[in-house]
């Protein structure tokens, strides 16, 4: 199986080959460097006229991408580190996310902004954050986070070519080198793809559904716990599901969401209905985060059927550079296993 990085890179090449309107804007994206995390490698050699290596102007390049998309191109903007999205917040919140609705649906903004997020590489407080929670809940912005299940490349390809709205595409750095998984490689697990049928108001025009994934240990009895996660935390949660089953005889069902916003959580609701217990797991800091929204939605839908809720997240601190300190601040496998044990 290809790695997530290879899958994303191939998807970009395929999108460039299939549509002449695809443009790349990003810092240090020219070959041989090909971007800080190499996701854009090879594009500038194959399509020199369509790849813009840019000044260090995150707001500016998001704006240029937005302008291009308003006029019918399909730009992809690479933000070198997700931390730098803060520099582009005005573009994302006040312009990109608003144009379509505030101009009375007379325009579309088929723009993909992709960026690596997350820690565990010792990059320290300004290069390790998981900042997408600050953009979740901005009306008009679709936020996708690939994981190792399904096909991250296909997700990116469809985001670029089959969607008419702006997409923030969040790639956890630790996913890049992991292999893409499917039912044949995940032999200890039963993997179900949950294709969302939700068509909410911001989703008009028959947009392709984005899949969620449901994983449980093969042959496990009815789950007593639902774990919800996305991105790289889904990887740790999958390991936790395995540990919980084989060491503690706790059978959990893992639900991995791919679309974070607009909220698309039927798979979580369905699983929590079966288990009555929900553990949400995220790499972002705890307070006011993604997990809080998942819990609130689930509690509202399930009422007293939901017996117990817990959250695993990063401490409300900057992400330290020191490896042992970073490991304490960020949520790990042990945290998930411990919290799960407290619930059932």
């Amino acid at each position, binding site marked *: 199986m290809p790695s997530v990085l290879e899958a994303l890179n191939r998807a970009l090449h395929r999108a460039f080959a299939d549509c002449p309107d695809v*443009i790349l804007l990003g810092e240090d994206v020219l070959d041989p460097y090909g971007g800080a995390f190499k996701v854009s490698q090879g594009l500038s050699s194959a399509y020199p006229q369509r790849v*813009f290596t*840019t*000044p260090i*102007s995150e*707001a*500016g*390049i*998001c*704006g*240029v*991408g*937005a*302008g*291009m*998309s*308003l*006029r*019918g*191109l399909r*730009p992809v903007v690479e933000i070198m580190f997700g931390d730098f999205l803060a520099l582009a917040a*005005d*573009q994302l919140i*006040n*312009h990109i996310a608003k144009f379509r*609705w*505030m*101009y*009375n649906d*007379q*325009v579309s903004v088929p723009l993909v902004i992709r960026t690596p997020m997350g820690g565990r590489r010792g990059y320290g407080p300004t290069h390790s954050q998981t900042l997408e929670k600050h953009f979740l809940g901005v009306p008009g912005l679709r936020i996708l986070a690939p994981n190792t299940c399904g096909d991250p490349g296909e997700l990116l390809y469809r985001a670029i070519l089959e969607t008419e709205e702006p997409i923030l595409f969040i790639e956890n750095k630790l996913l890049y080198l992991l292999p893409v998984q499917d039912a044949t490689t995940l032999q200890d697990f039963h993997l179900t793809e949950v294709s969302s049928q939700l068509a909410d108001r911001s989703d008009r025009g028959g947009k392709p559904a984005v899949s969620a994934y449901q994983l449980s240990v093969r042959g496990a009895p009815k789950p007593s716990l639902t774990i919800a996660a996305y991105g790289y935390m889904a990887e740790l949660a999958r390991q936790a599901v395995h540990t919980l089953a084989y060491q503690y005889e706790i059978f959990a069902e893992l639900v991995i969401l791919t679309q974070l916003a607009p909220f698309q959580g039927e798979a979580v609701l369905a699983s929590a209905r079966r288990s009555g217990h929900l553990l949400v797991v995220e790499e972002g800091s705890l307070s006011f985060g993604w997990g809080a929204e998942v819990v609130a939605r689930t509690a509202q839908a399930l009422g007293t059927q939901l017996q117990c809720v817990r959250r695993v997240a990063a401490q409300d601190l900057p992400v330290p550079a020191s490896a042992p300190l970073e490991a304490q601040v960020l949520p790990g496998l042990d945290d998930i296993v411990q919290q799960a044990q407290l619930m059932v």
Partner: protein
Amino acid sequence: MFDNLSLYGELYRIRRFEETVLENFPKGVFSGTTHTYLGQEANAVGVLSHLKPEDVVFSNHRCHGHFLAYGGDPQALFAELMGRLGGVCGGRGGSQHLHWRNFYSSGVLGGVAPIAAGVALAEKIKGSGAITVAFVGDGTLGEGVLYEALNMASLWSAPILFVLENNRIAQTTPVDLALAGEIAARFEAFGIPARELDSSDVLEIFPAARAAIQAVRAERAPQALILHTCRFGPHSKGDDTRDPQEIVHMKQTRDPLKVHSGRLHPAERAVLDRQIDEQIAAAFQAALEEPFPYA
């Protein structure tokens, strides 16, 4: 096509629209806020008279004059300010957020500068031949993203004209309290040639804008046009902190309508004034009849 009479009509139409807005705001027929273009009319008319249908315009919070000079419908603009269904954007955008044909405006200063540059680049990549005109004000010179946009527009030769309207005051802050250095030098530092004009005369602004726009078309690269101008009205509605005498003096010496109307036959002008008065009054009344939208 651009005889003195028709240019006057364009100026007066904007004037009468904006006066109608300010006259009626206290009656509660409009929602939210507004920023009128009184005193600056010759800029919009002088610049936008040179556009082709495929060209693109980006404007800002003070966009009514640009919209009307672009050819926008006064009734749709009134309705938009009233939050009604027949508005330019169905009432969703309001005074500052308009989109019609190739006209876009938005209310966060500086934010549209890179977007306008991206539009200009997209049209260049597509080979449409369209150019983009982006209106910014002296207040926007304080926003960092403007300079990111100037840099990229020049670096990548975007066919765009930046029109800097310096009305010498940002909300209540005089330009002298907010701006170091020279305005033209800001553009020139990025290799963008800047033309500068201190005039309220549409017949001076018109040829300067034509030359700037011709240069953008010919060179497929950015140009700047700096228009020093006068804002007669408050920033919004009742928030003018300037000395009233200063405004009286401005209106006596720098009114684009006074400057230009001397070139017209008084009888001809009176007929046109009456036509436009009736047109704007009818547009206002018709907008009032529009239903409100549902969420």
